[in-house]
């Protein structure tokens, strides 16, 4: 039974895996319920920084009740997390949001697309997808620091794009699809907004289904504050306006349902 809670988790292991990118495993009782595409809120110990940082779940170790998060240091909160050592306490709230609709992959040629710090949630997703006709994992990086690409390669064919052209296709994930002539039926994606907009357009043009994971500034993470909304095509069932809560109704949406 899935249940949200806030608790003191314990850092199991942490390492830096690229410039500004950290890879942390934590032990927490919420780990077994985690689904690909869900996220956790991570709280700083610095009480001047009140709000939790929403971070996507990269990998789940249900047997040992551990979660892996891979995050970019973007400010003082994530800089604090980056300094955590094994055994140290880390306050988390989770698991939050709905995951990717795994069932949509059955019998389909699947694209898993991640851009930058949107790559991490693709790993658990790649692990848990079952019965797909094929799995192409298309990932975009700034440079040849190809974090997580080896992990991803265990679960599908990895295609790399880099902004500086130092590895794979020069450009972004859309350039990689074009240059490698990839074809698919359904897309699962997470990444920066320009990438998600391009994917929404691409999927519409090709008549593909696309499920995209969004992010926004959040406060509560549980659907109460209405801080993190996205414009929706239809009136949202909860809010009764064209705004849905990313933390609770998302973060994954069918691309055609959201105005981004």
């Amino acid at each position: 039974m899935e249940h949200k809670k806030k608790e003191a988790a314990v850092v199991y292991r942490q390492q830096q895996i690229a410039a500004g990118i950290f890879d942390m495993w934590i032990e927490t009782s919420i780990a077994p319920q985690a689904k690909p595409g869900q996220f956790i809120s991570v709280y700083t110990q610095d009480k001047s920084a009140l709000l939790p940082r929403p971070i996507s779940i990269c990998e789940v170790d249900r047997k040992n009740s551990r979660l892996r998060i891979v995050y970019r240091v973007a400010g003082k909160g994530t800089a604090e997390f980056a300094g955590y050592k094994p055994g140290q306490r880390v306050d988390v709230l989770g698991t939050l949001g709905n995951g990717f609709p795994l069932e949509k992959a059955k019998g389909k040629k699947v694209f898993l697309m991640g851009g930058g710090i949107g790559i991490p949630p693709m790993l658990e997703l790649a692990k848990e997808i079952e019965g797909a006709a094929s799995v192409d994992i298309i990932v975009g990086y700034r440079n040849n620091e190809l974090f997580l690409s080896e992990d991803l390669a265990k679960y599908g064919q990895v295609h790399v794009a880099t902004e500086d052209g130092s590895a794979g296709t020069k450009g972004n994930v859309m350039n990689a699809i074009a240059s490698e002539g990839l074809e698919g039926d359904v897309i699962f994606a997470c990444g920066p907004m320009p990438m998600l907009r391009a994917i929404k357009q691409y999927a519409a043009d090709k008549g593909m289904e696309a499920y995209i994971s969004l992010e926004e500034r959040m406060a509560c993470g549980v659907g109460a504050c209405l801080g993190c909304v996205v414009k929706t095509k239809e009136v949202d069932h909860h809010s009764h306006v064209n705004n849905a809560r990313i933390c609770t109704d998302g973060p994954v949406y069918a691309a055609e349902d959201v105005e981004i």
Partner: protein
Amino acid sequence: MLNTKINIAGVEFKNPVMTASGTFGSGMEYSEFVDLNTLGAVVTKGVANVPWEGNPTPRVQETYGGMLNAIGLQNPGIDVFIERDIPFLKQYDTKIIVNVCGRSAADYVEVVEKLADQPVDMLEINVSCPNVKHGGIAFGQDPKCLFDITKEIKAKAKQPIIMKLSPNVTDITEMAKAAEAAGSDAISLINTITGMKIDIHKRTFALANKTGGLSGPAIKPIAVRMVYQAAHAVKIPIIGMGGIANAEDAIEFMLAGASGVAVGAMNFVNPYTTAEVVKGIEAYMEQYGIENLRDIIGTV
């Protein structure tokens, strides 16, 4: 036997601990963390006569010891609220205070009239939202306007009303007196303090709305001061709020003159805050041999 009961305008609360409007939805989301039966009251997110879209994103930003929000009072409108949120809250043994927002006197009155036959205990009138152009802030910053709107709403309301005051005024006592003179049964304060944050990397406003309301522990001393001032200016009961993070903070507000206390932004930081404040108040009473919590109100 500890007596934590508090009476506000004839309504008896099992304890003074409430939720600050807009930080707790209608309780649904936080019922997974907190037993709502343990709270004095749930104060709902503001509801208007019709659904409101709210502001564009980003709507929230962190600041030192606090946060800015400019949600813009997104709400589903009173009809959905009556059909969905009130029945949900009625499952619990807690008082229901509905926060009412509007762009005009007629908007407020429409909501208040629709709530007349509903099983709600009190109405909190939001005349102090800084984030929507006509979110009532105009009513809450001028004593004459506040007097008029209070009188109009009071004439139509079937439940006791609480006027929620804005801190964005020169003299809070003038506003408190205006609400009292117009017949408000209680007042609550403070709403958020208008603030701004600039993203120096993007060289733009951190909130899409440019300005937002500051809340959280950063504003607590201002809130305590205003509750104290208001308590010495009026006889009607006060519900105090502004950065309450624990029982010590709540007791500070009560000593300053608040009969009720509401937890706001700290719900986001620790979803168990409300329940912890209830427990902590009891521990304080035991520590100091206080039998009736109401005896400490306004004693400083």
